């Protein structure tokens, strides 16, 4: 029990008749970095805000750092750090003043505040710019400072809602270094993102679509098993005709055009592929088994879950 930092069971949020988060189960171990991925409006922010005690769940329950979010939100708040999707430091205050403010809100002991601020400033790479107004900082620095503010009180659990959106790649990479540094100090982190390459940096990925958890696992697991078949790359001439033809083949789970090639997901043997196409007038090269990218996996799973959701 001590090893579980976040535990959600049947977590649900309705806005009127609209279900934003639907019966979500999620369990995160201490020190884990879990990526929260899903299309716009999937319910990532809503889930995170429920876990922070900012929104009351409509149904289900969640425990964070051992406290129930609905019954004991105050205790939850003292044990978490949160970066909201919007940038939310005070632009008209300086770096130092922002840190002092958030340190005070969390009642960081007075004796320690200087040391912790020093650490946060170092982490953000803002040494020597303590008195600069935050609104004049570039995106990457702002985000790292916001992270610094969110961890001044040394929370064991961190919720980061798209902390790297709109930040250039180099700054994003630095930000993820910080995340891993924190994780190595056994801080538990749930981080939502739109960037596929960031998903690779996570211990596990939770894929959410239309409020439902579609898949959860390590990047490797998801690539290997989530699709329920093997992915092949195929070069051929009439791409459009090939896709139509493959759609009728029982062993094909899915076929899609990827630039000038086809990606075909198949269960069972691939032997019958070329002949099937040949009898339908499409000449194709030798299918080459490839490892699906996480993007392949997500696109597949999301479209499948959307179809399932509609029926």
């Amino acid at each position: 029990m001590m090893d579980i930092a976040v535990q959600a069971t049947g977590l649900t949020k309705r806005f009127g008749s609209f279900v934003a988060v639907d019966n979500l189960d999620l369990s995160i171990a201490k020190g884990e970095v879990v990526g929260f991925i899903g299309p716009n409006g999937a319910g990532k922010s809503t889930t995170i805000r429920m876990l922070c005690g900012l929104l009351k769940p409509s149904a289900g329950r969640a425990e964070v750092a051992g406290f129930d979010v609905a019954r004991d939100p105050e205790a939850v708040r003292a044990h978490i750090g949160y970066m909201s999707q919007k940038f939310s430091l005070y632009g008209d205050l300086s770096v130092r003043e922002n840190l002092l403010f958030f340190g005070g809100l969390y009642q960081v002991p007075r004796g320690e505040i200087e040391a912790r601020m020093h650490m946060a400033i170092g982490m953000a790479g803002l040494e020597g710019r303590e008195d600069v107004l935050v609104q004049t900082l570039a995106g990457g620095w702002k985000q790292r400072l916001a992270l610094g503010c969110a961890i001044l009180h040394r929370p064991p659990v961190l919720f980061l809602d798209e902390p790297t959106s709109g930040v250039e790649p180099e700054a994003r990479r630095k930000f993820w270094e910080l995340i891993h540094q924190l994780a190595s100090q056994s801080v538990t982190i749930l981080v939502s993102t739109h960037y596929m390459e960031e998903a690779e940096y996570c211990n596990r990925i939770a894929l959410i679509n239309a409020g439902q958890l579609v898949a959860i696992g390590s990047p490797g697991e998801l690539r290997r098993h989530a699709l329920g078949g093997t992915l092949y790359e195929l070069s051929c001439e009439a791409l459009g005709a090939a896709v139509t033809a493959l759609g009728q083949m029982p062993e094909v789970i899915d076929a899609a055009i990827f630039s000038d090639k086809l990606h075909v997901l198949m269960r069972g043997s691939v032997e019958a592929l070329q002949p099937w196409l040949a009898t339908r007038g499409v000449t194709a090269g030798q299918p080459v088994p490839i490892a699906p990218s996480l993007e392949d996996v997500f696109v597949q799973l999301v479209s499948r879950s959307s179809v399932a959701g509609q029926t």
Partner: protein
Amino acid sequence: MIRRLQVMLMKELLELRRDRWAMFRLIVPLLIQVIVFGYAATFTVNNVSLSLLDLDRSQGSRELVSHFVASGRFDVVDRATSQHAVEADIDAGRAVVGVIIHAGFARALDSGKTAPLQVLVDGTNSNTALIALGYVNQIVAGFQSHAAQSAWPAGAGAAVPGLTVSMSERPWYNQDLADRWFFIPGVIGTLAFMQVVSLTAFAVVREREVGTLEQIMVSPIRPYEFILGKTVPFFLIGLVDVALVTTLGVLWFGVPFVGSIWVLLLGASLFLIAALGMGLLLSTLSRTQQQAFALNFFFVNPFMTLSGFAFPISAMPAVLQWFTRINPLRYFLVVIRAVLLKGVGPEVLWPSMLALAALGVVLLTLSVLRFNKSLD
């Protein structure tokens, strides 16, 4: 708790100091408005139409009439022959002021008794009426000092003859019309109200819009700590507003300050708490600054109109009169007018003070409750 409140206040003050235009925005429009309102309210009016009725036909009464004519302020449109005719003049809009000198006026003066003088005022334009009444008072005072010096045969030790002006209005409204400085205290209350309500509403909504509110709410801060941190600075700004505008009214426009500054401070404090509560409530009803702007407009204007600031409450339809009972501005206008002009204290003003306190408690409680929920 103290620590969190401290950092909230520190943050508010820093933000206020960073905002180079804050002081300008807070003070300059306020001063301009007082001056504009002040001049609009005390603008001299000449040739006020007057209907005169002299039922006494004595030397004394003719003397008074000549004072009216000689003043140059009045234009005698009718030498009426009956009280009924004077009333008809006013009701028809031919005259703004009617002066009736009743029979026995001179006799009363001569015997050193107070002599009655009836003044009728058309209350429909309260501003002109106020100014006209000011003139009537001036003329009567001039007549009195003249009478005191001149040769009325006063018995040895007889008192200086006095005049009582009994005032009445048609239409019968606006009880406080008797006071020329009725308007400026109203301006003070109204401006402070507008400023405090909108400042509070906007400050909270801005934090909501920028996203800092969410960041604060996820910390262990209690809603009341946040609300205190947000409102204390505006409370102080509101007090400065009232002080500044009152000073200007007294020094520039010569509004009398008869009463106690402490009673005013008490009334202003209760009033500002209610205004802050209203601002907070508006902020919980809006997601964006635009919505706050619309709501502010929607609420603050009726509160001003239905406060007795310009339009007398007793002349309003019953429904609107009922509505004024939940209007903090209405009660504060009673307090500030009474303190400045009449010098009365809490022994008279306690019902208004109590109403302000009650409104403050209700509005603040409502906004704290709504504040908790509005996070959803």
